[in-house]
């Protein structure tokens, strides 16, 4: 029998709200939440990061859009999404009406600073979500990583969005830079409230029979267990140079993986590709973190965050 009084507290106060679980579903792997509602109890985890939303609907890339890779998968969906108007009229009301405890961050994407700003300004007055995750790191559309790899452009974007909203503003970083830390610091200086580390790595698979890329777009983003160490490193690096809460992403399939991110400095984590293998992966990750804390006599999750000893400079 577990003594309820001895159960560790996985809740944290972040972004001005109580977040009951550190585990979220990652953008692009959970649709707009509804798709998973029959499969897992969304209120048993921290919440979700939605599929990207752009001003206009996007058609996305030709197939194949996904393929398995050693230790993961490659995808090039191309930010297919319903667009701002339909997100507000159809997707957001469902989230508002069906989630009790789980928090929602809307992943926002644009081609220009203005497009990002129009999405944020359009969403801001509506209910049903907590904040934004700004996607400056999609490797699968032309210019998708532009804002994530150009220091000046990133600073301009984040400053502009900061002026548009008082809601939590999280920037999803790309690993495709020499030093993630530089971009983490820019986000903090420009007024961001948090960092998601990291998006997918660019990759390619070749169909050796047809001598063509397997993925219709040519290249794609690699996710899954193969990128776990890179995600942990990016999380650690972002935490080293900024005081913002970091949300660790990349290759988390169970509690022990998430615990690596938490020790390296993540306050929250996102489970992505693993949900495709087992829709229950995020809930199991939450339970796995809880079991770790219990086993190590840690009563509060926040006592674990950023407790890495040693570590390279």
């Amino acid at each position, binding site marked *: 029998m577990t003594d309820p009084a001895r159960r560790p507290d996985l809740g944290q106060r972040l972004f001005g709200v109580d977040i009951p679980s550190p585990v979220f579903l990652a953008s692009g792997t959970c649709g707009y939440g509804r798709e998973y509602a029959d499969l897992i109890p969304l209120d048993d985890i921290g919440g979700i990061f939605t599929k990207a939303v752009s001003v206009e609907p996007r058609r996305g890339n*030709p*197939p194949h859009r996904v393929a*398995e890779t050693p230790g993961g998968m490659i995808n090039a969906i191309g930010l297919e999404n319903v667009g701002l108007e339909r997100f507000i009229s159809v997707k957001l009301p469902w989230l508002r009406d069906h989630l009790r405890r789980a928090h929602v961050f809307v992943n926002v994407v644009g081609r220009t600073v203005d497009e990002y700003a129009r999405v944020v300004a359009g969403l801001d007055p509506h209910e049903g979500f907590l904040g934004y995750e700004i996607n400056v790191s999609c490797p699968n559309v032309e210019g998708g990583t532009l804002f994530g790899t150009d220091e000046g452009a990133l600073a301009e974007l984040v400053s502009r969005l900061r002026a548009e909203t008082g809601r939590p503003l999280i920037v999803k970083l790309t690993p495709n830079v020499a030093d993630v830390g530089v971009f983490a610091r820019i986000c903090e200086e420009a007024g961001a409230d948090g960092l998601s580390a990291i998006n997918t790595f660019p990759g390619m698979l070749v169909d050796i029979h047809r001598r063509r890329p397997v993925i219709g777009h040519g290249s794609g983003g690699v996710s899954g267990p193969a990128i776990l160490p890179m995600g942990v490193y990016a999380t650690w690096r972002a935490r080293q140079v900024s005081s913002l809460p970091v949300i660790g992403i990349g290759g988390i399939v169970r509690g022990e993986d998430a615990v690596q991110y938490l020790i390296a400095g993540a306050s929250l984590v996102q489970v992505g590709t693993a949900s495709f*293998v087992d829709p229950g992966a995020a809930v199991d990750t939450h339970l796995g973190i809880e079991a770790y804390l219990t086993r190590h006599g840690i009563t509060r999750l926040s006592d674990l965050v950023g407790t890495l000893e040693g570590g390279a400079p």
Partner: protein
Amino acid sequence: MSTRAVARDTWWLEFDCPDIARGARPGQFVMLGLGLDAPGTWLLPRPFSIGWRCGSDGRLGFLLRVFGIGTRALARLDEGDEALLLGPLGRPFEVDPGRDVELVAGGVGLAPFIFLAAEHRSSGGALRLLYGERDAGAVFDLPLLEELAGHAPELYTEDGSAGTGGLVTAGLDPASRASLYGCGPTPLLRALAAFAAAHGRDLQVSVEEHMGCGIGTCQGCVVPGADGRWIKACVEGPVFRSTELAWGDR
């Protein structure tokens, strides 16, 4: 689960999964994988058409042919092993009771038609099952097929080593008015779509595309729609009227 070899590199898998079997209809599919704790291998689940249902004990049958790493891993499943099944998923075939049907299968596209033929037995309409393979070695165990489907197939092989030599489309009858159903490689489906259009025939096809999740979240499994949209095979299909799809782009 249980497994048996039924052709070269081809297995017939049966799983006890009463919750999925109960509501399953021909044309629907299941995401079949080994879960996150499978030793030594990372494996996204793969979509499989439901090939058969034993109503009395909640078993489902699937036809598996080894094409790559995923199917090879699944082919190693042994008696009593467990797997992770998510389903039944997707849009099933529509079948009007009493109507004559012609099912045209290429390779492992045979799978959903075993289920459809078995379910059609009680409907009263006539049924033809046209089944094409590359050669005799690839042909599904015929006595087992007849036992499961309740129909003997009209067999075609491209090299003539079993059944009638040539492509399975040679068996199509322009004079027939039966409803057409197709499942198999895209060139076969394209040829069927052209035949159906030329002869004013109703055709439903079950399509295949790389899938990530099977439930519409990853948007990975799109096929080109006649209206210019990319259509998700998992939740809007995998069964489509042939007129819903664009065939030139495929």
